[in-house]
C-alpha cells in the first residue's frame, strides 16, 4: 500500500473538488432519500386512511392550523440567501488561502504530459474513450447525454412526485437517473481521477504509479473470438450482435415498464413517441456498462467492425 501515492493524488489541488464530491454527493443523496422515505410513509398512511387524506395538509413539514400559508421574502428568504452568501464566501476564502491553484511548466507541445488528463468534470468522457472510439465517446454520447437530459420531462409520463421527495411513487425514474448520474457519470470521474495513472493504465488506489509499466492488453474484437475473418462477415456479424443487444435490452426494459400495476398504469399513459424515445435513451445508456464489462472482464474491444466506423 503506497500511502504517499494515494495522498499525492488526493491532495493534488485540482483533485480536491472530487474529494469534496465524494463527501457531498453521498450526503445529499442520503439527505434526499431520508425525506423521500419520510414522505413515502405519510403517503402510505394517507392511502389507507381516506378520511385523513381529505383533511391532511399532505406535507412532512411541520404544520399547525392557523399558521399563515405564506411568509414574507423579507426577511425569511433574504436572510437565508445572505447567510448562504457569507458561508460560501468564507469557504472560498479559506480554500483560496490554504490551497494554490495548480500551475505547471509553460505549455510545451513537444513534451507530452503523462498521464495527460482532461479537467476532472470531463474525466467521465475521457474514461469512456477506453470503451468507445472517439466519435462515440467524445461526440455522439456526450450529445446524447445532453439531449437525453433535456428530454426527461417530456418522456416522464408519471404525474406523481411533482414537487416533493418520493421514492415509492417514482421508483423507475429515480433508479434510472441515479444509475446514470451516480454510477456511470460520477464513478467514472472518480475512476479517471484516482485509478487511471500513466498511460491511462488501471492502478488500484494505493498502488504506485509506475511510469515504466506496460500492460500487454491483447484486446480482441468480438468477431475474432468466433473466428470470423472477412470484412463483410465482421460487418454482418457485428450488425446482428448489435441488433440482438438492442432487442434484448428493449424487451428487458419493456418488462420493467410493465412490471407491476402501477408501472402498467404509467405505461398506459405514454404516447408512442415517448415510449420509443425512452427506449432509445435507455438502450444507449445501457450500452456503456455492457461495453465496460466486455472490455474490462473479457478484453473485447470492438463488437461491430465496418470500413467506416467501429463500435
Amino acid at each position, binding site marked *: 500500500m503506497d500511502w504517499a501515492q494515494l495522498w499525492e493524488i488526493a491532495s493534488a489541488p485540482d483533485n480536491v473538488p472530487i474529494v469534496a464530491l465524494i463527501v457531498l454527493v453521498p450526503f445529499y443523496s442520503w439527505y434526499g432519500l431520508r425525506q423521500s422515505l419520510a414522505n413515502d410513509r405519510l403517503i402510505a398512511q394517507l392511502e389507507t386512511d381516506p378520511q385523513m387524506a381529505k383533511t391532511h395538509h399532505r406535507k412532512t413539514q411541520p404544520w399547525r392550523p392557523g399558521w399563515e400559508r405564506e411568509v414574507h421574502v423579507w426577511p425569511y428568504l433574504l436572510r437565508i440567501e445572505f447567510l*448562504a452568501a457569507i458561508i*460560501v464566501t468564507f*469557504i*472560498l476564502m479559506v480554500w483560496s488561502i490554504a490551497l494554490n491553484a495548480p500551475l505547471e511548466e*509553460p505549455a510545451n507541445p513537444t513534451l507530452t504530459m503523462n498521464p495527460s488528463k482532461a479537467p476532472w468534470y470531463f474525466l467521465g468522457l475521457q474514461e469512456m474513450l477506453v470503451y468507445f472510439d472517439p466519435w462515440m465517446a467524445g461526440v455522439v454520447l456526450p450529445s446524447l447525454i445532453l439531449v437525453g437530459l*433535456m428530454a426527461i420531462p417530456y418522456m416522464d409520463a408519471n404525474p406523481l412526485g411533482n414537487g416533493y421527495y418520493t421514492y415509492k411513487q417514482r421508483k423507475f425514474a429515480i433508479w434510472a437517473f441515479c444509475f446514470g448520474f451516480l454510477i456511470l457519470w460520477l464513478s467514472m470521474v472518480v475512476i479517471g481521477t484516482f485509478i487511471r495513472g500513466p498511460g491511462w493504465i488501471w492502478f488500484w488506489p494505493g498502488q504506485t504509479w509506475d511510469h515504466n509499466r506496460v500492460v500487454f492488453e491483447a484486446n480482441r474484437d468480438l468477431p475474432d473470438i468466433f473466428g470470423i475473418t472477412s470484412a463483410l462477415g465482421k460487418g454482418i456479424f457485428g450488425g446482428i450482435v448489435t441488433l440482438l443487444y438492442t432487442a434484448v435490452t428493449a424487451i428487458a426494459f419493456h418488462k420493467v415498464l410493465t412490471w407491476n400495476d402501477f408501472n402498467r398504469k404509467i405505461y398506459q399513459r405514454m404516447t408512442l413517441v415517448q415510449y420509443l424515445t425512452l427506449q432509445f435513451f435507455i438502450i444507449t445508456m445501457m450500452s456503456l456498462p455492457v461495453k465496460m464489462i466486455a472490455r474490462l472482464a473479457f478484453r473485447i474491444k470492438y463488437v461491430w467492425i465496418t470500413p*467506416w466506423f467501429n463500435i
Partner: protein
Amino acid sequence: MPEDLKDQNGSKKGLTALLEEVKSEVKVLKEKGVEEAKSLQDPEKTQLYKSIFRVKHDDKPRSRALGVLSNVFLHLHPAKINRDAVAYNYTWGMGGISFYLFVVLTFTGTLLMFYYHPSKVQAFRDILYLEHDVPFGKLLRNMHRWAAHLMIITVWLHMFRVFLTGSYKKPREFNWVVGVILMLLTMLLSFTGYLLPDDQLGFWAVTVGTNMARATPLLGHEGPFGPELGMTAYNDVRFGLLGGSIVDSNALLRAYIWHCIAIPLIASVFMAVHFWRVRKDGGISGPSPMMLASEIKEERKL
C-alpha cells in the same frame, strides 16, 4: 464705509446693535443646525434615504413587500412565498449558490483581466506576475479557480435536487431544458478557462479535449464519413474551434474570447430566462402537497 451703511439702514447703527443682530442670527442658525442634526438620528427621514430606498424600513407587511418589489436586486423574488419553500432540507440552496458563484467569478475574473494578455508571449508570464507580484494576485487567481470548480459541483447538485423532487414536471419542463443548457455552459466556461494560464496542464487538457472533435461524424477529419465529405485537418470542426490545426496562439485567443465575453453573455441570457421562468411557472416547485396514486386523472387525449 460709514456713509453707505447709513444709506442702507436709514439710521446709523452702533457696533453693539450690529453684534446683537449677528448673535440672534447665529442663534437661529444654531437651533436649525441642532434640529437637523437631531433628525439625522433617524436617517430614514432624510431626503437622501428616501430618494434611494423609497420605502419605509419597518416590519409592516406593506413595507416588507414593497422593500422587495421596489428593489432592482431583490425584485427577482416575489413579495411572499410558501412558508415551506424556505426549508433548506427541501431546496438545498444549490441554485442560488450557483448564481452567487457566477457573480463571484465575474468579479474575480474581471480583476484578473486587468493583468492578463491572451498572447503566447505573455500569458504564462502574466500568471507568474499575478502569483508573485500583484498584491493579492495569488488569492484572486485561487479564488477564481476554486469558485469555478465549486460552481460545477453546485450546478450538478442543483440538478440532482430538481430531479429528486420531480420539479421538472408540468409546468416546469422547459425550465429544466434551460437548466441543462446552463449546466453545459458552466462546464464550457470552466473548460475554456483551463487553457488560459498557457501551462502544460491546460495545454494538454485542451489538446485531449479538442482532439475528440477530430472524430466528429461528418464534420471531423477522422470521424465516420468525415474524409468522404472532404474534411481535412485544415477545414474541419476542430480547426474552427482552435483557429488552427494545433493548440496555439489562435486557440488561446479564441478560448479567451469565449471565456470572458461570449459564454458569460450567453449564460447571462439563459440565466435571465431561467429565473424569469421560475417565477412565471409559479415559483419554486414545492414542497407541494403529495398526490396519491389513486388520484391520477385520465389524461386528455390529443
